[in-house]
């Protein structure tokens, strides 16, 4: 005769034990969260496009990205000053401002920083948009600032040796050296007339961004420590300017709640009538 085993209290103990075991195996170590994107928030007052020290920057979300010595193509460099870069973004609906902050023990005329963007929908290699073997790559748009020039330069490249300033200059930049660190703010309108050469920003949509830093400190040879391709770089990360507030998801959610409540009421009423 088959023995029928009835579930009792021990059965529940086993169930709780298994649930605990599952949760325990599912626990993950707390990894340090590395930034993957720069977020430019909508500023209510004036955009601090020419003031890297403005109080408004304190309201912007900060992202930090590690920097590497440029070892991808000759001329390479093995040690760079900037180990990481902190980036903030703000916009006023028409112009975007991006603040780049990094440590540098000395202020030098040849200190420089740059932002790089893809142009249009075509993917571009992070190293100056160099050609790719199996993918048709696009150009890159580079915003460059050098301390001694005191201005932003709007540049373009599609491969090594093709970097040159655009005939039109839409980028502004200003750097301030304070307490062993550079704060450089770049700014440009969201849209320009030169869609084939300039990156165009669409609020709410992610774009690719990369960074480059040069420590212009003079060495014994009289040359800057970092120059040209000898620089600190990053590969592509993401950038997004916040879209204007959109409250429609809250409306949809409220509508869904109302519909679900109505469904429940009808269901319960019908069940009661049926019973």
């Amino acid at each position, binding site marked *: 005769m088959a023995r029928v085993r009835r*579930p009792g209290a021990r059965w529940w103990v086993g*169930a709780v034990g*298994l649930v605990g075991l*599952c*949760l325990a*195996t*599912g626990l993950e170590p707390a990894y340090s969260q590395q930034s*993957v*994107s720069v*977020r430019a928030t909508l500023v209510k007052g004036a955009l601090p496009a020419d003031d890297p020290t403005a109080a408004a920057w304190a309201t912007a979300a900060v992202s930090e*990205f*590690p*920097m*590497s*010595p440029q*070892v991808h*193509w000759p001329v*390479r460099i*093995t*040690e760079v000053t900037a*180990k990481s870069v902190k980036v903030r973004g703000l916009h006023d609906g028409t112009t975007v401002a991006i603040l780049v902050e990094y440590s540098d023990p000395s202020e030098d005329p040849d200190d420089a920083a740059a932002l790089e963007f*893809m142009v249009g929908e075509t*993917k*571009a*290699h*992070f*190293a100056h948009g*160099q050609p*790719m*073997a*199996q*993918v048709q*790559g696009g150009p890159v748009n580079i915003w460059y600032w050098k301390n001694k020039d005191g201005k932003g330069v709007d540049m373009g490249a599609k491969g090594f040796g093709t970097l040159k300033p655009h005939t039109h200059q839409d980028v502004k930049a200003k750097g301030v050296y304070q307490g062993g660190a550079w704060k450089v703010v770049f700014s440009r309108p969201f849209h320009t007339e030169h869609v084939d050469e300039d990156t165009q920003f669409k609020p*709410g949509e*992610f774009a690719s961004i990369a960074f480059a830093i040069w420590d212009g400190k003079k060495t014994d040879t009289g040359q800057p420590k970092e120059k040209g391709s000898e620089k*600190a*770089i*990053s*590969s*592509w*990360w*993401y950038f*997004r300017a916040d*879209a204007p507030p*959109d409250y*429609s*998801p809250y409306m*949809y*959610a*409220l*509508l*869904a*709640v109302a*519909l*679900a409540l109505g469904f*429940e009421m009808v269901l*319960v009423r019908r*069940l009661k009538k*049926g*019973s």
Partner: protein
Amino acid sequence: MGGVLVRPIILTVFIYLFLKFIVPNLPHSAPLPSSLIFLYLMLTTAGIVIFATLSGASKDAFFGPIFRFLTGESGGALSSARYLVLALFPLLVGWQTYGSTASSDAPPAENRTIHPAPPGEYTGLSNPVPKTPDNIMYGKGLYASRCSPCHGNFDGKGFAAPGFTPPPANFKDPTTIAMLQESFLFWRIKKGGVGLPVEGMPWKSAMPRWELELSDEDIWKVIMGEYDGAGQKPRTWDESE
């Protein structure tokens, strides 16, 4: 609520926990996408309902407690649970609706293929350089000067690695060169990141195109030094069959 409902609920919870937390920890396994877990739970629920409605009696036994619970006829402590369920259901629907309509702060998903198929001419090549101690040592020397800045001591942790995404490969990891043929490495070293197909996201890779600076023979020697230094062996056709 009758025992007839407790078991299906417990079964569904167990299956969810098993898929979510146990399966990813099984050898050679990986976390299941939430959409797949949802599909499995739907299949489980469908199976339970089919099983419970095989006869009129079992159908009444299955749905009876549900109806009594919903109409409040169960009484007792279940009355409080009833109000809780009736309140949580619309909130859950609202939350799901918000989640599916609100814009996400997460960057676009990147479905990068880590080891895409190489072009035909780089398939099945064998290393033409004799595997002598001298050649291995020469390859390790080239590795030290050209590769170690990013790939480090064969562990992907070179001094130049932190700024690059995706990170340089860790050759000691059994899922990298140990599962690849030498011909794959020859292609990747020779053509670099820009030689990758679209699914390899070549626009992000910092791997140099070493054919511009190293001869084919030197590349084969680097491969030899790489396997030796990482304590790995290349995958061969014999082993893969």
